[in-house]
């Protein structure tokens, strides 16, 4: 078990390194293929008003003329060991993990990311709670009443749910429930109140994004749960449970759902991991200052250090979620042996 | 049938065996991680030797997981042996390349256990039975279709079903299709891996009969793998009993069933339920305890010692070699029963064994 975790951790690190190399290569190579030179990249650092000579000096200083591998090495070293940064009056140490400094704001990326994290986390976890409850409950009921009116209605809604683009539902929800309404359900975007500051405001600001996001996922999970339940309810062990004389509720919940929940948990973990890296569309629709919005803004401004940082953090969450899911799997399903 | 008589003790002395297996081993590595590091091995087949003579049927029995299928797959070179030697018709095919093996594959064919998974559900019967021609690049006189239909008829199927899909056939019919496929290339040796165990009793008999008929007609040599001792007894001339990757006893049919020497064979035989209510009270039973140990960690020396009621110190330390104790009868046991000189039939052997060793009485059930 311990060796398994260690091995998985090593693999996670390897995977993140690969992701970072690819990301780095793409973001530092493709612009060059597109015609950017180290000068034009540096120009982004020193602004439009700088003289050509200043640009040259900056390019040299930022190491844009070094081979890619050297640049990557520097970047990686920054993450592991931190980096030194000349902020003008002096040199400052940017402690590990140092994801470099934004082209635009000149501020280290890492604290920025830490700053955005609570927003995305609030969004993701809040929505997750809603969708798990709503999705799984609907799925179970649908499966038990297979073919009933409820089942068909629920599955119809669920199918519609997974077919609606979230940026569409998002805007519509904003128009209907928020923009210029006397009784707006939520402050549409831009506003995030940390939960420790004011839980009521926190929820108020997030309720609409939660519901929109949760609707999409709940729809998917309802379908998943239903399929899973239909399958487990056909398992032999359900027949055994009934043969023991258990009542139907226990059979469904303790035996059926327990069996169906494992794959759902897996997917849940991965979905959550993916979301924690930034709910790009939701956040940009609702202007929530989370990781996803950060990513979009960074991309819009071609702020490469930010893009790198946010990509890596997002990848980290996916990898981490994978790891947790695998470990959890062993807890949930005793048949899984880790070793 | 003619050949069967020859297989009785005393027959065949000089003829070279069609297939000879010597010290064959297959250890499946248990690997881990990206680099496929080996952390252990399943010793599925662990040094077995036997010969198969032309025209005879060799039965291979044993409990689940003892390596029967692996043996069959080794002989047909579907998997690569870890050690040992396979000689077919005088040719060493142990490590022969797949390319050089191709022509030989016409001679050695395999019948599979599961009539549902052994036929590709996306191919028609014609395509399935015709596949050997296509794969081996054989042109037949009147075209493949004709040839296939002839074979279908041979195994008792309607040739008009050429264009049907496997799912339209019953289990027994599917098994016939599988047999038809193996016959397409006019093989000499057929390895049948549990050819009937997935079938209902009534169908089982049809297939058994078919196999026997074909053997007579086409001059085939069989290695029949099965766990059902009755079926094996019915079709085999000689029988090998396997336990955890080893052959513990090999003898002609009569010798094995009437005077088994290995305790395991004895136990197996006595465990078979007899469809005769009167006999159930008369029989002496040997009840083995527990299950077969894992081939990942087989017990040392004699692999059977953990379940054997006759086991003694030596059994845990020295591996008994497979020795010929009677003509055509080889056993790997330190304390064989029914060996020449030791009197008594099956029942006597058992009680005698228990009494004489006095070991592990838990292993027997006097009831």
């Amino acid at each position, binding site marked *: 078990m311990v060796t398994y975790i260690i091995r998985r951790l090593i693999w996670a690190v390897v995977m993140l390194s690969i992701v970072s190399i690819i990301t780095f290569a793409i973001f530092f190579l493709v612009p060059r293929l597109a015609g950017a030179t180290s000068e034009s990249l540096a120009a982004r650092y020193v602004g439009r008003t700088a003289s050509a000579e200043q640009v040259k000096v900056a390019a040299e200083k930022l190491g844009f003329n070094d081979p890619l591998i050297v640049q990557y090495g520097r970047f990686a070293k920054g993450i592991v060991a931190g980096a030194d940064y000349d902020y003008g009056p002096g040199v400052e140490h940017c402690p590990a993990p140092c994801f470099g400094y934004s082209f635009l704001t000149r501020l280290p990326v890492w604290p920025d990311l830490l700053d955005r994290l609570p927003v995305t986390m609030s969004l993701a976890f809040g929505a997750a709670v809603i969708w798990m409850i709503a999705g799984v409950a609907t799925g179970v009921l649908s499966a038990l009443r297979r073919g009933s009116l409820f089942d068909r209605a629920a599955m119809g809604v669920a199918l519609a749910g997974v077919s609606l683009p979230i940026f569409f539902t998002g805007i519509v929800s904003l128009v209907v429930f928020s923009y210029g309404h006397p009784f707006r359900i939520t402050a549409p975007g831009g506003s995030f109140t940390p939960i420790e500051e004011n839980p009521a405001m926190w929820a108020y600001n997030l309720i609409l994004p939660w519901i929109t996001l949760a609707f999409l996922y709940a729809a998917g999970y309802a379908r998943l749960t239903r399929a899973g339940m239909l399958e487990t309810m056909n398992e*032999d*062990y359900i*027949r*055994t*449970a*009934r*043969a*023991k*004389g*258990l*009542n139907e509720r226990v059979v469904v919940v303790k*035996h059926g759902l*327990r*069996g169906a929940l*494992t794959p759902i948990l897996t997917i849940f973990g991965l979905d959550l991991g993916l979301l924690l890296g930034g709910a790009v569309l939701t956040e940009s629709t609702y202007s929530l200052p989370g990781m996803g919005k950060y990513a979009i803004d960074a991309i819009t401004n071609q702020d490469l250090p930010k893009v790198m940082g946010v990509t890596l953090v997002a990848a980290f969450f996916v990898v981490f979620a994978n790891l947790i899911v695998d470990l959890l799997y062993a807890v949930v*399903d*005793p*048949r899984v042996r880790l070793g | 049938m003619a050949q069967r008589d020859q297989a009785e003790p005393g027959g065949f002395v000089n003829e070279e065996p069609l297939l000879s297996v010597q010290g064959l081993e297959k250890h499946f590595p248990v690997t881990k991680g990206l680099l496929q590091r080996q952390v252990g091995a399943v010793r599925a087949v662990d040094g077995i030797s036997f010969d198969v003579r032309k025209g005879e049927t060799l039965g291979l029995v044993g*409990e689940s997981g003892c390596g029967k299928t692996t043996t069959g797959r080794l002989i047909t070179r579907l998997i690569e042996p870890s050690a040992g030697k396979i000689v077919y018709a005088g040719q060493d095919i142990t490590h022969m390349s797949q390319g050089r093996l191709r022509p030989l594959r016409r001679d050695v064919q395999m019948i599979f256990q599961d009539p549902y998974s052994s036929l590709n559900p996306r191919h028609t019967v014609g395509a399935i039975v015709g596949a050997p021609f296509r794969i081996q690049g054989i042109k037949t006189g009147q075209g493949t279709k004709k040839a296939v239909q002839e074979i279908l008829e041979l195994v008792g199927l309607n040739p008009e079903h050429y264009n049907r899909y496997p799912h339209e056939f*019953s*289990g*027994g019919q599917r098994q016939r299709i599988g047999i038809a496929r193996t016959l397409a290339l006019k093989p000499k040796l057929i390895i049948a891996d549990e050819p009937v165990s997935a079938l*209902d*009793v*009534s*169908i*089982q*008999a*049809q297939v*058994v*009969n078919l196999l*026997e008929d074909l053997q007579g007609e086409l001059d085939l040599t069989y290695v029949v793998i099965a*766990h059902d*001792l*009755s*079926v094996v*007894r*019915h079709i085999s001339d000689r029988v090998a009993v396997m336990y955890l990757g080893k052959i513990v006893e090999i003898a002609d*049919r009569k010798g094995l069933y009437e005077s088994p020497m290995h305790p395991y064979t004895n*136990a*197996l*035989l*006595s*465990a*078979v*339920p*007899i*469809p*005769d*209510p*009167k006999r*159930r009270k008369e029989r002496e039973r040997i*009840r*083995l*305890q*527990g*299950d*077969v140990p894992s081939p990942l960690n087989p017990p040392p020396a004699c692999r059977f010692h953990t379940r054997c009621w006759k086991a003694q110190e030596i059994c845990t330390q020295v591996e008994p070699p497979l020795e010929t104790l009677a003509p055509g009868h080889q056993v790997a046991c330190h304390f064989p029963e029914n060996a020449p000189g030791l009197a008594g039939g099956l029942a006597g052997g058992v009680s005698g064994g228990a009494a004489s060793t006095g070991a592990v009485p838990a292993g027997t*059930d006097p*009831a």
Partner: protein
Amino acid sequence: MSFLELKDLRIHFPTDDGLVKSVDGLSFTLERGKTLGIVGESGSGKSVTSLGILGLHKGGRARISGEIWLDGEELVGASQEHVRTLRGKKMAMIFQDPLSAMHPFYTVGDQIIEAYRIHNDVSKKVARKHAIDMLGRVGIPQPARRVDSYPHEFSGGMRQRAMIAMALSCDPELLIADEPTTALDVTVQAQILDLMRDLQRDFDAALIVITHDLGVVAELSDDILVMYGGKCVEYGTSDDIFERPEHPYTWGLLGSMPRLDREPTERLMPIKGSPPSLINVPSGCAFHPRCAFEERTAGLAKAEVPELRETEGGHLVRCHLPAERRRAIWRNEIKPNLEAS
């Protein structure tokens, strides 16, 4: 009245392809302490019957008619809730594949405890003790330790033992074992058969053993019921069935089996064809397309469904051939072949 009595039980499933008549007019009786063996080919309706007795088809698509009397109570018409309270306590079942029949996520102990506590108002601790006892009784070594194992940590034989322990935990009066040993190796099968025999003696339950292996029924049963195409074709004591079988299908079964206790015959005597579809059951006697003696009924077999008739002393046979002819055929044509050489 008998302890268990089935009267004209029919269990049909409407499906896309048509109505599946899995059980079609099955009647038999069984007394406490007795063992009934049900044999038949795959798909003959054995499992459907057993599940039907436990009321496990209810709430599904099955159409059930007829009567099932258990200890004076009628079950087909009884409420689902009532039947549920009987399950486990009054009647219990052992399934064929113990690995899939046990929940993979709960320990063996938990599953036995659960079964015990539904019907007995006891604390978890007491139930656990009981579970350990039961595991010990079915011959699991170190039951106090193994009670916390998961099913997958057991070997096949142990699993089946645990399954039996679970079924017996509430001391049921009727125990149905559906192919209890089919998934097991011979040596383990022998252990389980012994165990079941011992347990039945101790518990004095009525036992129904379902199998397609004639050897197994011969080992266990007092009476044997041969099923074909959802119907009983022959019923009698073990002796009747093995010594004086009267139905051609039973003969076929006997003739198909290679047997260790007899000399190996040259050829087996299989039944031709394959089992009938339960949607389009052959007209008349369902067995007639496969029956070697069909011509001897003068077309009757094709036209009419034969009645299940008593020949002598509780021996029932469903065949158009007159009893005398059947006995003659057995004596002269079948039996000698079986014992040939």
